[in-house]
């Protein structure tokens, strides 16, 4: 292989994208050509510099919420003709109708639609954790490390329950529930991932009226959502395990948060 042939393949060689035979050909040329070796090293270093600078840069959560809101509000999903996406959208449309009925039709319906909207938001927050490549800002299985991390980042102090039975703490980050800062705690339960959200109780519509009430469960878009309050802080547990199991775990967590 000559210089021209080697240079054309340098970038792919540096990234390991060539077949073994071509790789051997390029390497044989590099062994005998200092200029091309220099080019290969420069390409590798430029890649490393660009990747190091760009790779882990994440979009702010505020943008994620903005875009999710636009997408929710604006219509059909990409990739038409996939029936499994439809129920979610159909239910979102139904929620919109419900919200409208609630507005027109009295306080009970109003509270119900607020609870539905809150459950929708909580499920979206859970999905955001699942969908993100780097969902956690603090990755720790130790609640004594996760809890202090929130200090100064939130204007309330959430209880961070640690491991309990099959439930394993994975870490946490700061997110939003209804445009208010929230603690986002990620847990694993066998092969399932659960999200526990903690957010200010006051001013969040859709919560049960009594702060000491039993956790209340609701199914949204294929997920189960259980909410409860402890003092000024509201908690929501979201996941795709059975409603009964999630409720059992939530009752246990609620007891910890109310201690």
């Amino acid at each position, binding site marked *: 292989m000559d210089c021209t042939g080697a240079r054309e393949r340098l970038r792919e060689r540096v990234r390991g994208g060539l077949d073994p035979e071509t790789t051997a050909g390029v390497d044989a040329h590099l062994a005998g050509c200092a200029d091309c070796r220099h080019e290969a090293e420069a390409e590798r*270093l*430029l890649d490393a510099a660009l990747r190091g600078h760009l790779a882990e840069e994440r979009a702010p959560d505020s*943008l994620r919420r903005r875009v999710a809101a*636009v997408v929710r509000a604006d219509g059909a999903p990409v*990739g038409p003709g996939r029936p499994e996406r439809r*129920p979610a959208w159909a239910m979102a449309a139904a929620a919109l109708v419900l919200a409208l009925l609630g507005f027109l039709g009295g306080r009970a319906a109003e509270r119900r639609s607020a609870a539905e909207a809150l459950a929708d938001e909580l499920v979206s927050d859970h*999905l955001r954790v699942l969908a993100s490549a780097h969902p956690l800002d603090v990755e720790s299985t130790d609640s004594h490390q996760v809890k202090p991390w929130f200090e100064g980042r939130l204007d309330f102090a959430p209880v961070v329950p640690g491991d309990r039975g099959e439930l394993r703490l994975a870490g946490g980050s700061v997110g939003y529930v209804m445009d208010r800062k929230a603690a986002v705690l990620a847990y694993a339960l066998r092969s399932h991932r659960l999200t526990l959200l903690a957010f200010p109780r006051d001013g969040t519509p859709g919560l049960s009226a009594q702060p000491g009430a039993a956790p209340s469960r609701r199914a949204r878009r294929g997920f189960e959502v259980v909410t409860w309050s402890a003092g000024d802080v509201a908690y929501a547990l979201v996941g*795709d395990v059975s409603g009964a199991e999630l409720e059992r775990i939530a009752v246990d967590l609620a007891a910890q948060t109310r201690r």
Partner: protein
Amino acid sequence: MTDAGHRIRLVTGDAGKAFTDGDPLVHLDALRRVALRLTRRPGDAEDLVQETYLRAYRGADRFLPGTSLRAWLCRVMRNAFLDGRRREGRNPVDAVADLEEVAAAEHGGGLLRGDAELDLLRRVVASEIEGALRSLPEDARMVVLLDVEGFAEAEIAVALDCAPGTVKSRLHRARLALRRRLADYRR
């Protein structure tokens, strides 16, 4: 499979699946990285990303299932960016002028010789990378960025609306121009 199982698979997307029928939002980070280098201002970048998703959802029927979703989203974003420039009365990206600009960048200064260039690349800092990227015309910037994001040449061609055969040489010229600009910082 349960409804919940479906939902998770679709949202998290497994490799390969995400291109054709995954959730477009998984590409948000990458789109925002590119948008930030196109617009140069965080607020403008966020507006551009939002506009991109809005257009993508409204024009979802123009996406061909089975093709690269992220490439298509980048194409939508490039068009939104160009439309924004036209609205401001600035020239749209002109491929010929771009090539001349790249050529000018290439002749703006030589590469450092030998180990001096490698040392420079080892110690290059964020502000120098940003500055060097800014000195490139938009499409050259996009080629470099999309390549670093791991886009295949065919995907870059879709994103830039250009012939696949021209991507390799565009990328080569743009990266060379980038190295020359970086060398300029150390003269």
